[in-house]
């Protein structure tokens, strides 16, 4: 149910992208952040800056994400200073073209491990790795990475685990367990 809610939310957000027109997401790698209460200083410092709209931090992956006006740019020196004054270390940044409210985790995970971004159209070949507990999605293993696939309605594969499979679809986000989620439009089963 949570997954359905997530996907519905993403679809809704996609429909309201215009609400965030003119915003970008700036994702920064931080070292030393270990609890939410200690990261509050970062939020305070970023939100003092005109043009910063939203702040989030993924402590597990050490990723700070802020949604800002698209004309707001930070130099590495500025970011280094902000992070130092908050007690942390700045390790680099990445700018996303849109800021649609998605957690930084999805972007980070996809970028870091699969080279994928939300919205990417993909064609992946991997090995079928079983159906999710809720029976609505299934897993595909591609180059040792587990990917969660949302099949087209009524097209759940009925295969033995380890069977090769090709999926075409769009990256829609990240599951609660950290897997990239792809909404499939085509599933090519063997034979």
């Amino acid at each position, binding site marked *: 149910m949570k997954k359905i809610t997530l996907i519905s939310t993403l679809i809704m957000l996609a429909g309201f992208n215009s609400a965030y027109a003119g915003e970008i997401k700036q994702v920064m790698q931080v070292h030393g952040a270990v609890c939410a*209460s200690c990261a509050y200083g*970062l939020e305070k410092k970023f939100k003092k800056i005109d043009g910063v709209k939203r702040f*989030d*931090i993924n*402590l597990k992956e050490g990723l700070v994400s802020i949604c800002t006006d698209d004309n707001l740019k930070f130099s590495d020196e500025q970011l280094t200073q902000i992070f130092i*004054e908050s007690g942390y270390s700045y390790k680099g940044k990445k700018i996303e073209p849109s800021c649609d409210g998605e957690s930084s985790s999805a972007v980070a995970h996809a970028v870091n491990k699969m080279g994928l971004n939300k919205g990417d159209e993909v064609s992946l070949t991997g090995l079928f790795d079983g159906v999710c507990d809720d029976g609505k999605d299934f897993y595909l293993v591609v180059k040792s990475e587990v990917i969660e696939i949302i099949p087209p309605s009524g097209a759940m594969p009925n295969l033995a685990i380890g069977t090769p499979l090709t999926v075409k679809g769009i990256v829609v986000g990240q599951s609660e367990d950290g897997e990239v989620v792809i909404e499939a439009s085509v599933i090519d089963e063997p034979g």
Partner: protein
Amino acid sequence: MKKVIYRSTLLAGVIAINALPAQAHGPIFSLGPETIYKDGIETHLEYHRASDKDETENELSMGLGYGITQDWTIAAELPYASIKEEGANNAGLGNIALETTYRLWKHNALGLQDSVAATARAILDTASTSDDPALSPGTNDFVLGLAYGRESLIWQRWASVRYRFNGKSDAGIERGDQISVDAVIGWRARVPQYYKSDTLWMVEVNSEITQRSAQNNTPLTDTGGTELFVSPGVIWSYRNTTVKGGVQLPVYHDLNGDQSQSDYRLKLALELIL
């Protein structure tokens, strides 16, 4: 009467001796290396309770801290104390404490921070000593401490040592200095998320080694000794708001002469980072 005043003078401020200002995500009873971010403000409201066979102390204190830099914090604490001793009660403003913490060393890694900090604390003789039981021992006391912390997303470890220099009162009473050595381990069940509440469980081991007190340079028999506490506690936080509480339970004592051993000490705190 003289004996009562004397005992009161010796024991007043037991809470102040051992209590430290709240340190957000740091240990509850012992010293941590945490500092406030640059220009950050931390305010807290704390309740302490300590008791033994003869005396019960309650203290409600307000504290304010400020981050001069990300590594240097200053803080002040204003307590309101209440003491009940052998049927007599007294209450009023306690001793104001001023504190500074400087982080000497820090190592940041992904989901990990190691740090060492030094702390100096002055406990000023601002409370009334005229009533019985006294709210203050009538001295200005100073604490120096060194703390190490290794904090990660799941496990936390802290260790600290403190030395308290106790002053000499006008009555010629000099309470023995005290060394405290602490070790703490903390654990949370899941990696914290920024917009969700976080619960951290911890267990502290607190030891206090107190020298004999003296009156006019004559050592007092029934003073000083060693006590060991095990202190379970919990910290609950949501972004900039933290609630923490713990209890110090005495598990070992080797006190000189005829003294009442500590019963328990309780601490509850509400902290807000601004």
